[in-house]
């Protein structure tokens, strides 16, 4: 249904296509390049001699006999215990998402239904908290965590990430609940439910699209965090991102930068799959609140 107002001249269309091809190169090429390069040896990934080595794996063939090698992955996952970091990240993400969503749905629902002025202040304070860089809070945590021996454990990181996540979760779920008609739960309350029963039996069954979208973003926050996890987890409990950062310090000197490359590819893969399955929800989450406002 191309209306005439949308018709474009040929040069303009060609320009748009050329621009998109360029953007696709910028957006996707670095990832494909690194994925391909992660199966080579360092001499190919960083080839001073000829950039085509990285494509054909010339040094890799000399050093290992094949055009592809899993050395980087073996080094990262087995030698450097990257699997442990993967396990820690999974635990952190699972608990952060579950707890954030539980707290967030309750709070977001209340904020969307109350008409008093303090809801506004609550949301504004949450916005200010959202704007603060998380690392500014870390120097507040450290002395207390050291004193009470809480430093370094996964549960500590989980609860801290949940708290840092709350402002965003509240805002997002608040705007989702605003879109669920008030009549729905109010009629349940007329029928004799109390507020919590109305929430439990009427709101929970219809809230899932919003909760899934918010959950994706809490997951991303926990998965991508570096500032907090790097500072409050010890060596044993490190998650993936600080672990990759620590590879840079130790392995770059040993000439094992390929471990870091393999780890980076391993950390990107789950995100890739996540976008594949949840593209629609991510897009709707990014625009929620923006388009209506």
């Amino acid at each position, binding site marked *: 249904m191309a209306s005439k107002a949308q018709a474009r001249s040929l040069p303009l269309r060609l320009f*748009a296509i050329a621009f998109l091809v360029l953007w696709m190169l910028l957006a996707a090429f670095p990832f494909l390049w690194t994925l391909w390069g992660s199966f080579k040896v360092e001499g190919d990934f960083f080839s001073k001699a000829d950039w085509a080595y990285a494509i054909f794996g010339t040094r890799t063939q000399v050093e290992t006999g094949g055009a592809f090698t899993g050395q980087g992955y073996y080094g990262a996952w087995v030698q450097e215990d990257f699997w442990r970091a993967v396990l820690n990240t999974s635990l952190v993400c699972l608990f952060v998402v579950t707890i954030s969503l539980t707290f967030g749905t309750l709070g977001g629902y209340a904020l969307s239904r109350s008409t008093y002025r303090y809801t506004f202040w609550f949301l504004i304070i*949450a916005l200010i908290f959202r704007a603060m860089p998380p690392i500014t809070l870390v120097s507040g945590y450290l002395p207390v965590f050291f004193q009470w021996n809480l430093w370094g454990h996964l549960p500590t990181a989980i609860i801290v990430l*949940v708290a840092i996540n709350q402002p965003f979760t509240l805002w997002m779920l608040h705007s989702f609940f605003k879109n669920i008609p008030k009549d729905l739960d109010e009629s349940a309350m007329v029928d004799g439910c109390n507020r919590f029963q109305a929430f439990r039996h009427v709101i929970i069954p219809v809230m899932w699209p919003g909760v899934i979208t918010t959950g994706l973003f809490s997951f991303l926050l926990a998965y991508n965090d570096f500032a907090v996890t790097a500072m409050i987890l010890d060596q044993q409990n490190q998650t993936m991102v600080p672990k990759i950062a620590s590879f840079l310090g130790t392995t770059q000197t040993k000439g094992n930068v390929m471990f870091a490359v393999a780890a980076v590819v391993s950390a990107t893969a789950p995100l890739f799959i996540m976008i594949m399955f949840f593209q629609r929800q991510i897009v709707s989450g990014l625009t929620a609140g923006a388009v209506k406002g």
Partner: protein
Amino acid sequence: MKHKTFFWFVFPSAVAMLLFIALPIVSVIIQSVHVAHEQVVVTVENCGPFGCTEATMIDQEATEELRREKPLGQFAGLETYFDRGHLATTEVAAAWRVSESWGEFGGYLMNLPFYKAMGFTLAYTFIVTPLTIILGFMIAVAVNSVTRRVRGPLIFFSLLPMIVTPLVGSLILYWMIDARGIIGTALQMLVGDPTLSVKASTPLTWIMLMVYGVWHSAPFAFIVYYAGLQTVNQDTLESAMIDGANRWERIRYVVLPHLMPLTTFIALIQLMDNFRVFEPIVSFSASAHATSLSWAIYNDLGGETRQLSSAAATSVLTIIGVAILLSPVLVRTWRDFNRKAA
């Protein structure tokens, strides 16, 4: 909703935010006005066969005890704020007196760690944010003009730079831009200088970090604008055309006003996120050429000696910066809310 019900519903979130955001802020402020205890020094007299000598030594036990009794350290007032690592009032005043021009004064300032971090953070925030908005808008218009069938894959690949962990995404670019990486080599060939290294030069490092910043956040602006373009009123567009508006006038007077509120939203989110720029500086190992406020805090906290009061003072200054940055938005929201309530 009754006050009491409201209270119980928001209780878990409120407690989490109070304990792990509000109280830490208070704790950060308190720490920033204290400094660590100095070591307790005692003078001992050693008397040997050749007479007595006086020696000063550190009394480890007394130091430990003092630190245990008052873990916060000693009260220092605003001393940390004005020392060389932060606002550096003495150094700035001295630089002001000796420097002949603004450029020279700026040069002196950029040698002080706090102003160096502040300078890069502000430059990054105010250069990357508008570029992100422009690039995002261009991608949105381009994607909106192609057939529906290819839009799905286009959006998929466009999301990648934004969703991928910042530390990981910047590492991927860093390896490509390395003198032995593909972009680094290509640049050397383009310029014709085989010794060119982006990492070694301050302006190139700044540009590289900003290019990463735009690459990372353009998808966000794109998605928001793209969604906005779907809701442009087609009837208005057509009637504008019937009234004789050409393409440019239609964009200028119909599409852009429709997208204006979205621009405010993107700018707000981007200002907040760019102000905390941190991970790329770690990934690009760029700290010799560019540091940011967040990086300065991280640097104070890490390593063998955790300089808590220094980190706390930088944190407080950063929070004040965020508040100033956010204040126009807050005032506007406040007015909107009052208008709605009235």
